[in-house]
C-alpha cells in the first residue's frame, strides 16, 4: 500500500518521464531538419534557419536526457526503493519550474531573442531559475536519502555527485558574465569548454548511476552497487569529470600543464576499457536468465557503445591525434556517440525497466520492439560511421589541401551528409517505434495514478 506522498511522487516522476519522451521525439525531428540543411542549404531557411534549428535541437535533446534521468531517479527512490520523499512540494516546484523554463526557452529560440552560447543558447538570465531547479532537486534528494539509507551503494553516490556537479558546471558555463573571464578570450573559451565537458560528465553520473541500479535490480544482486570495483570505477569517473575535460581545448593557447593533466587523467580510462574486454570475455560462457528483459538488451547494447565511444574518446585525447581530429566531424561523432549510444541507450533501459514493472507485457516477446531495437542500433552505427568518414575528409582538407576552398570541400562531403541524414531518419523511426509504446504505458499509469488521488 503506497502512502499519499508516494502516489504524488509517482505522478510527478511519470510527468518527468512523459515530457522526456516528447522531448526525445521533437529533438530528433529538429535534428533531421538540421540534417536537411546540410544537403539543401535553402531548406526552410527563411522559416527556420540553422541558427534556430540547432539551438532547438540541442536544448530539446539535452532536456530528454535530464528529464528522463530525473524522472527515473524520483521513481526509483520512491516507488522501487520505497523511501519517503523529503518533500513532494519541492518535487512539484522542481517540475513546474523546469516546465516553465522549457516554454520560455522555446519562446526565446523561436523569437530569435537569445544571446547565450553553444548548448545554452537561451536568454542567459534563465540560468538562475535553472540552477534553482537543480538546487531543489538536490535538497530533496539529499534530505531523502541521507535520512533513510545507510551505507550508500555506489549509485546513490553517483546521483548525488551528478546533481552537485551539474549545479557547479552549469554556473561555470556562465562565468563569462564576469569581465575577468570575458575580457580574456583564451580564459573565456577554455572555461566555457571546460564547463561543457564537465556538465556532460555530471549528467553521465546520473545516467551511469541508473545503469548500475538497473543491473543490480535485474540481477537481484545488491553487491553490484556495493563492491570495491564499483567504487573504484566511480572515483575514476569522478576524476575524469573533474580533470579530464581538456581534450576539447588542446588547441587553445593555454598553458601546457592543463593539457598534460588532461592527457594523463584521460589515459586512466584505458583501465575501464581493459576491464570491459576482460569482463565481456568472462561473461561469454554464462547463460543469462535476464536476457528476456528489454532493459537488459539495452544494457548489453550500451556495453558495445561504451566500448566504441571510449576507444574514440581515448584516441582523441592523444594530442597528436587530437591535433588532426579537432574541429572536424569526428568530434561530432564523439558527442553524438555518447549522447545517443550511451546516454539514450541507458535511459531506454531505465524506462523499459520501469515500464515492465507497470505492464509486464512490455518485454522481449514483442517482436515490433525487438525490430525497433535493431533498427535504432543499426542506423546509429551507420550514422556514427558517416560522421567519422566526414571528419577524416575534413581533416585531410584542413591539413593537406590548403588551396581547396571551403565550399568545394563541403560539396565533396555531400555523400557523407546524405548517408548521415538517411541513417538519422531511420534512427528517428526506430526511436518512434520504441518511444510510442513506452509513452502509452506511462500515460495509462499516469491517468490511473491521477484517478486514484
Amino acid at each position: 500500500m503506497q502512502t499519499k506522498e508516494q502516489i504524488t511522487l509517482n505522478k510527478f516522476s511519470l510527468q518527468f518521464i512523459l515530457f522526456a519522451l516528447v522531448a526525445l521525439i521533437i529533438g530528433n525531428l529538429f535534428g533531421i531538419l538540421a540534417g536537411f540543411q546540410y544537403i539543401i542549404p535553402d531548406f526552410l531557411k527563411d522559416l527556420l534557419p540553422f541558427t534556430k534549428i540547432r539551438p532547438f535541437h540541442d536544448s530539446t535533446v539535452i532536456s530528454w536526457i535530464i528529464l528522463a534521468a530525473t524522472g527515473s531517479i524520483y521513481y526509483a527512490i520512491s516507488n522501487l526503493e520505497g523511501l519517503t520523499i523529503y518533500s513532494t512540494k519541492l518535487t512539484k516546484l522542481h517540475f513546474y519550474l523546469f516546465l516553465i523554463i522549457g516554454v520560455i526557452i522555446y519562446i526565446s529560440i523561436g523569437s530569435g531573442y537569445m544571446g547565450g552560447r553553444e548548448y545554452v543558447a537561451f536568454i542567459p538570465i534563465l540560468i538562475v531559475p535553472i540552477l534553482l531547479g537543480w538546487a531543489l532537486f538536490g535538497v530533496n534528494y539529499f534530505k531523502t536519502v541521507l535520512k533513510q539509507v545507510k551505507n550508500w551503494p555506489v549509485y546513490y553516490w553517483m546521483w548525488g555527485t551528478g546533481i552537485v556537479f551539474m549545479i557547479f558546471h552549469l554556473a561555470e558555463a556562465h562565468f563569462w558574465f564576469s569581465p575577468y573571464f570575458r575580457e580574456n578570450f583564451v580564459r573565456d573559451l577554455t572555461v566555457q569548454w571546460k564547463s561543457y565537458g564537465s556538465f556532460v560528465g555530471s549528467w553521465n553520473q546520473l545516467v551511469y548511476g541508473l545503469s548500475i541500479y538497473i543491473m543490480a535490480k535485474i540481477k537481484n544482486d545488491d553487491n553490484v552497487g556495493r563492491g570495491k570495483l564499483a567504487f573504484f570505477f566511480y572515483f575514476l569517473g569522478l576524476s575524469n569529470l573533474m580533470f579530464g575535460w581538456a581534450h576539447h581545448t588542446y588547441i587553445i593557447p593555454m598553458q601546457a600543464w592543463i593539457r598534460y593533466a588532461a592527457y594523463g587523467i584521460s589515459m586512466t580510462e584505458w583501465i575501464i576499457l581493459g576491464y570491459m574486454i576482460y569482463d565481456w570475455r568472462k561473461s561469454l560462457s554464462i547463460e543469462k536468465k535476464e536476457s528476456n528483459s528489454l532493459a537488459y538488451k539495452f544494457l548489453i547494447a550500451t556495453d558495445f557503445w561504451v566500448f566504441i565511444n571510449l576507444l574514440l574518446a581515448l584516441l582523441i585525447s592523444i594530442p597528436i591525434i587530437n591535433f588532426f581530429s579537432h574541429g572536424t566531424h569526428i568530434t561530432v561523432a564523439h558527442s553524438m556517440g555518447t549522447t545517443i549510444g550511451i546516454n539514450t541507450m541507458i535511459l531506454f533501459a531505465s524506462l523499459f525497466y520501469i515500464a515492465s514493472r507497470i505492464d509486464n507485457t512490455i518485454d522481449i516477446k514483442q517482436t515490433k520492439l525487438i525490430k525497433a531495437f535493431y533498427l535504432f542500433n543499426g542506423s546509429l552505427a551507420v550514422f556514427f560511421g558517416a560522421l567519422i568518414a566526414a571528419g577524416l575528409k575534413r581533416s585531410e582538407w584542413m591539413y593537406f589541401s590548403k588551396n581547396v576552398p571551403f565550399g568545394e570541400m563541403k560539396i565533396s562531403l555531400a555523400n557523407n551528409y546524405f548517408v548521415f541524414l538517411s541513417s538519422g531518419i531511420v534512427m528517428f523511426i526506430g526511436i518512434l517505434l520504441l518511444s510510442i509504446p513506452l509513452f502509452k504505458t506511462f500515460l495509462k499509469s499516469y491517468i490511473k495514478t491521477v484517478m486514484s488521488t
Partner: protein
Amino acid sequence: MKLTKLENKHRNRVIISVLVFTFIIYNYFVYSIGTENTGPNLSAKALKGQTLWQENNCWTCHQLYGLGGYLGPDLTNITSNPLKGENYIKGFINSGVKSMPKYNFSETEKEELIAFLKAVDQTGYFPSYNADLQPNGWVQLDYKNNDSLKKLPNN
C-alpha cells in the same frame, strides 16, 4: 564486519574530500595563470562584437579554434588571412550565402564584429600549421605574441 563498513564509509569520504580539495586548487590555477591571455584583452568595441556574435548565433555554423558548428568555416584567423580580411567579412555579412542568412548590421555593428574577430585572431592560430608534432605523441603548439609561453619547453 561493522568495522569494515565504517572503514569503507570513511574511505569514501576521505577520497571524495581529497578529490574535491585538489579540484578547487586545480580550478584556481586554470582560472588564473593557466589561461593567461596570449593576445590583448577584448576592448569595449570587441566585447560588443562578441555580444553580436552570441545574439546572432554565429557559433551555430562557424567555429573559433575549431569549436562551434560545421556548416560554415572556422573564423579564428580570418582577419589576418591575406585573401580575406575586413572587406571580405563585411561583404559576406551584407549579402549572405546559400545557407547563411543576410544580416542587417549597421556599419558600427560590422566594425564591432570585426574588432571581436581581430582580437580572437591575435590570440593564436587555428589550424596551427607550424606546430611541432613530436614522435612521443605530444604537440608543441605555435604561439602568437606571447614570449613567456614560447619559452616554455613543452608548449
